């Protein structure tokens, strides 16, 4: 996988934006700012998916994550009332330091493993970026999804149905308990 200089610059820029967004989620004093940092992270990742020639998934990322999920989070925040002191929602002192140390160790392990990757071995498929540009990403992904992976696809729709029923049940139980 060779990248042109323009691609490299864009990758670094979007990567920096994604990391900044993720950091602002965990460092923001107010949960609404966390939700907006999450939005920045999702949009940067969508741009990155498009550059990795996964156009459909990039657009789906924008619609599902940056659209629906962020709006749901903001909706829940507004329902609950986001105006609470920030210090309430954070560990401090020794426990926070221990958690951060654990995460740094984890990151160091992953980085070590990635650096040790030798070559670019592995079974090379036939779906090169040129093929994707020629046939279209949606067509290729749709054919794979509906021919090869039809059972997981149907199971995902059952899962979403269960999700809808569950959300309705949660809302209904709440209304009944309020009436009592």
């Amino acid at each position, binding site marked *: *996988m*060779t*990248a042109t200089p323009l691609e490299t610059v864009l*990758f670094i820029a979007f*990567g920096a934006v*994604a*990391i900044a967004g*993720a*950091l602002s*989620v*965990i460092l923001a004093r107010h949960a609404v700012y*966390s*939700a907006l940092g*999450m939005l920045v*992270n999702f949009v940067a*990742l969508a741009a990155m998916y498009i550059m*990795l020639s*996964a156009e459909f*998934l990039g657009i*789906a*990322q924008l619609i*599902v*994550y940056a659209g*629906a*999920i962020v709006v*749901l*989070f903001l909706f*829940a*925040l507004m329902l*609950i009332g986001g105006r*609470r002191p920030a210090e309430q*929602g*954070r*560990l401090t002192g020794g426990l*926070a330091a221990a*958690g*951060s140390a654990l*995460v740094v160790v984890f*990151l160091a392990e*992953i*980085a070590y493993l990635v650096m040790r*990757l030798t070559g*670019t071995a*592995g079974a090379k*498929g*036939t*779906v*090169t970026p040129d093929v994707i540009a020629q046939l279209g990403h949606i067509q290729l992904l749709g054919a*794979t*999804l509906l021919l090869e992976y039809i059972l*997981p696809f149907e199971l*995902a729709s059952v899962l*979403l149905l*269960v*999700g*809808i029923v*569950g*959300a309705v049940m*949660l809302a209904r139980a709440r209304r009944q308990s*309020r009436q009592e």
Partner: protein
Amino acid sequence: MDAIRYLLILSAVLFSIGAAGVLIRRNALVIFMCIEIMLNAVNLTFIALSRQLQSLDGQIFVFMVMAVAAAEVAIGLGIIVSIFRHKPTTDVDDVSLLKG
């Protein structure tokens, strides 16, 4: 060093930030956001390796992760709002009792 390593490191960094958030923050909604960040980091790994191996199989996983994340957010936020109605707090340490 080729681009795939940078992408894998980037997604490891994003995953670590999400994990740190889950460990450090105590607000249930922020913990939930950090879980979404970790899911997205894994999606980036799948798409980068899908491009590297020139196969679309990894992108099917991303599709499934997106469907699961959508269902998870709808249910999870419903549960958090239900808990809030029952006991007005979003701090996970305040709801640590089974029958609390």
